[in-house]
């Protein structure tokens, strides 16, 4: 056995080791990514566990509470409390609402303490312990969540803004005095909204 052959065999073995380690690392990363994906999907099945007695897992306790309000409850929320207020009206069935929600959560986190952010769902009341908190949990929303149920939606819409005809989503920013400084029917423009918050 000459040194050249030994060197060549070692090289081959090294190559094999490299390929094997690359393959297993790749496999591990794919596995991790799949786990991540599975984890994000799993939150959709959390709700079903909640109604099962004894299934008080950590995931369940993470579901945020959603408070039912009527028009007078909405009126109370709109009362100025000395802090600017950002309200987003949305529904799980509303595509644009779901699309803009991550931006809303980000803005809420960035301006925590400076403004109050609340979200008001217009979903069916039957979703108050279902799709609504499930979506809020998925979005990692930390803002108080409400569900508005009223027989006179026209009156509720009128309480919020004269420029609103009920289209979802709807986002409105009030200054500390309760005056409207920004409102948008349809998806809000995050940069415009942030600029308005900065001006407060």
């Amino acid at each position, binding site marked *: 056995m000459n040194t050249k052959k030994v060197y060549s065999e070692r090289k081959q073995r090294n190559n094999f080791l490299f390929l094997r380690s690359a393959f297993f690392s790749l496999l591990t990363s794919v596995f991790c990514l799949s786990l991540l994906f599975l984890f994000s999907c799993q939150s959709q099945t959390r709700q079903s566990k909640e109604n099962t007695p004894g299934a008080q897992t950590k995931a369940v306790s993470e579901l945020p509470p959603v408070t039912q309000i009527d028009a007078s409850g909405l009126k109370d929320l709109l009362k100025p409390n000395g802090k600017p207020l950002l309200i987003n009206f949305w529904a799980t069935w509303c595509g644009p609402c779901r699309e803009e929600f991550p931006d809303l959560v980000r803005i809420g986190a960035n301006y925590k303490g400076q403004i109050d952010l609340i979200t008001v769902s217009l979903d069916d009341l039957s979703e108050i312990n279902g799709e609504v908190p499930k979506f809020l949990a998925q979005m990692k929303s930390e803002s108080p969540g409400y569900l508005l149920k009223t027989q006179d939606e026209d009156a509720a819409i009128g309480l919020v803004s004269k420029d609103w005809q009920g289209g979802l989503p709807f986002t409105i920013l009030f200054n500390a005095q309760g005056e409207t400084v920004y409102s948008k*029917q349809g*998806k809000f423009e995050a940069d415009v909204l942030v600029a308005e918050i900065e001006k407060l």
Partner: protein
Amino acid sequence: MKKLGFLAAAIFAIVAIVAGTAFVYFNNAKWNEDTNAYADLAVGATVDNFSLVDTNGAEKSFNDLKGKNGAILVFVSAQCPVVKQYNERISGFAADFAAKGINVIGINSNHTESPEWVKSHAAEKYKFPVLIDKGNVLADKLGAEVTPETFYVNEKNVLIYHGAIDNSRSGGDITENYLRDAVEANLSGKPVARKNANAFGCNIKRV
């Protein structure tokens, strides 16, 4: 060498994450919706005659489509979940009102819905004509913002009622039949008690 393997895997993971983020970002950024508020046509004002193409591409005028006692314009959508919940009720009043000389005309102003889609949806769901409001010209003129949203116009083209069909999206707990009440009051010569009623719905996707 082992390190190289991990490096390759790490690069792969980073690329996957970046690609995923970029996909989400661009998918999001693709959405181009601008629904500024438009001035509503006030109840009592006259709706000018207009022409739009139907789902077969034929131009139709409002005056030709309206009934002897007027018409109801219903802004619809092929995908809005609220419209889906209302479709049965829309078909119901369309049949009832046609018998009273009031024709229902569907309007689709959503630029996000192709003419083919609007056509197949209309053929499946409605027996009344659906007009395609390209460039949301009519929606802007009337101040229509959501789906479903109705405009009840009498035989003289005067707007009698504008707004929601009733006060229940699900249809399970209707306590106010805004549109039916307006039609019935007007046909029997009584004043319409509620001339406007907003309700939550899908935004009209304007160009």
